[in-house]
């Protein structure tokens, strides 16, 4: 028996925790959020990913109550939250700057929200102790925020926003201020804490790696719209547009026109004097329609000799080699001038790398290796 996969968005019987219904937000003439509809389910770890200015922070601030909705409605557990001020929402936020109160100790920072609820002192003590334990901060309870490290501050901010046991926790670039190594460790910590507490997390980030690591679903945003919502592997392997494919990871885009070739198979005409590329696609394309083949570098293999029986093979010339330790990326220039990136894993420590600059090489990939996109 396998454990059931966590995917409430595929279950028609689940009711979402948060519903954005046709939400628009304008600042003067500027439209930050454009007629956006989206459901988020309980216990999800939902990531809003996009470049700065795409509206992800505005979405989060509307959930927290710091921005009002211009049009449409946002529901939390079935209720419209427009009229609820931020201090009465069962939503807490972890701020990008952490916003720790510099005049209060770690303990007092975590207790701040509990005290607002007028809880009895022993209850507060117990809850703060629990939070300190969860975030491994027991030793620092008496310190002031400026007396602890950046990573510890981040954990105080997390503990403070979780202390009230919110239905929904919003995290605004929670790891942005940490260095790379600490960030990777903390990502796993965040996931553990999210699982332990069973809280719904909505995270805003511009770091695609971070979103892919922590989230159950990722929403890629651009100019006030959500372009695609899917699980991390869904976003990576089946992007719905060139924008998403390009935003997440490295990709080669080959543009051309489609020509049907049996069920779910198309030929892509992409250059004069070039054999058409064979591509698999469940999305239908009409005859002669413009299309873009998005294909990840690691799905392309590179050889010196012409491969036999390849579904797609093109000859080119090595322009650049980037040795990254675990991987090597080859930039191959095709006769038409297009540059294709191909990646190989360096699985052996000592091996002769037979391919070098200016070498004529062959690159090949399968019909199912790439995704055929309309735009």
């Amino acid at each position: 028996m396998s454990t059931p996969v966590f995917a409430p968005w595929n279950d028609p019987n689940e009711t979402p925790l948060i519903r954005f219904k046709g939400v628009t937000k304008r600042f003067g003439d500027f439209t930050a959020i454009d007629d956006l509809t989206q459901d988020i389910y309980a216990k999800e770890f939902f990531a809003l990913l996009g470049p700065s200015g795409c509206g992800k922070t505005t979405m989060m601030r509307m959930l927290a109550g710091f921005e009002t909705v211009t049009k449409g409605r946002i529901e939390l557990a079935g209720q419209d939250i427009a009229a609820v001020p931020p201090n009465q929402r069962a939503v807490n936020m972890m701020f990008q700057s952490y916003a720790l109160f510099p005049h209060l100790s770690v303990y007092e920072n975590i207790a701040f929200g509990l005290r607002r609820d007028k809880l009895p002192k022993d209850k507060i003590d117990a809850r703060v102790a629990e939070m300190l334990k969860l975030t491994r901060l027991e030793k620092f309870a008496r310190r002031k925020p400026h007396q602890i490290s950046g990573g510890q501050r981040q954990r105080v901010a997390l503990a403070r926003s979780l202390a009230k046991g919110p239905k929904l926790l919003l995290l605004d670039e929670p790891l942005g201020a940490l260095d790379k190594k600490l960030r990777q460790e903390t990502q796993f910590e965040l996931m553990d804490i999210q699982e332990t507490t069973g809280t719904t997390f909505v995270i805003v980030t511009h770091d695609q790696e971070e979103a892919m690591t922590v989230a159950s679903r990722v929403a890629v945003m651009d100019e006030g719209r959500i372009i695609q919502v899917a699980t991390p592997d869904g976003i990576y392997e089946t992007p719905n547009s060139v924008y998403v494919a390009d935003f997440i990871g490295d990709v080669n885009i080959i543009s051309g026109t489609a020509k049907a070739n049996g069920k779910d198979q198309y030929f892509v005409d992409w250059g004069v004097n070039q054999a058409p590329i064979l591509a698999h696609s469940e999305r239908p394309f009409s005859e002669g329609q413009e299309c873009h083949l998005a294909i990840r570098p690691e799905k392309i293999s590179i050889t010196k000799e012409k491969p036999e029986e390849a579904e797609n093979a093109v000859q080119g010339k090595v322009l650049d080699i980037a040795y990254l330790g675990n991987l090597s990326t080859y930039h191959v220039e095709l006769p038409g001038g297009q540059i294709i990136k191909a990646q190989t894993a360096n699985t052996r420590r000592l091996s002769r790398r037979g391919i070098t600059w200016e070498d004529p090489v062959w690159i090949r990939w399968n019909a199912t290796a790439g995704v055929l996109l309309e735009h």
Partner: protein
Amino acid sequence: MRRFALIAVPYAWLLALFLVPFLIVFKISLSDIALAIPPYTPTVKDGFSALIQGLDFENFVFLTTDDLYYKAYLSSLQIALISTLLTLFVGYPIAYAMARAPQEWRATLMMLVILPFWTSFLIRVYAWIGILSNEGFLNQFLLWTGMISDPLTILNTNTAVYIGIVYTYLPFMILPIYAALERMDDSLIEAAEDLGCSRLTAFWLVTIPLSRNGIIAGCFLVFIPALGEFVIPSLLGGSGTLMIGKVLFEEFFNNRDWPVASAVAVILLLILIIPIVLFQRNQQKQAEAEA
């Protein structure tokens, strides 16, 4: 050698024109009044031993016997304290609004706060005479609106002194509070609201504590000069307004009692040492917190 000259020149200047005069004040405060020029005894001409023997605490004893003096000290403290608090209540909302104003306005607002400081202190105090007098602008305005039927007597009372001090020292209160509030991260207020504070509790629990150093600095910057103030009580205050700066001035110029005037000055200085030391400590603590 050059280093020596660099240090010695300003050092000697300050010794000769700041420290030595003080010691003279201290010495004269221990001398007796005399009908001579200078009007005190003993002087350096009497020789060193006579100089020492001639000194006593008689003038300080005199200050305690005549209740004019301790009343003047107490009333100076009271006036300085009340006007400092009034300045805080007037200045804080202005500083707060400045810190919340759009970035591009702030430099202009700052300049508008500082500009009165560059104009003559005397003229700024003088401007209030025309406003507060019985037939002044304020009374004319209030009579016109019908809020009062008889002119209010404000000029030559302590109220006029409070208004004068608040008006002239307001920039000293606004600037340090503004500096503290401007540094504050807006997300702290949002965080407080997010954790369940209303606007008012967030202000009380976060904004006020974080601007504490600015408030303290501003209060000292108003309180210390207000305590020794002379121009404002003389121009706006009445005969009943007792402030020590005024008493000292009158003692010196009208009564020509130099020893008593010096004793008054020495005591004023002793009273001032406490707030000055406290102020220095606050500034130091702030500097350390920023470092």
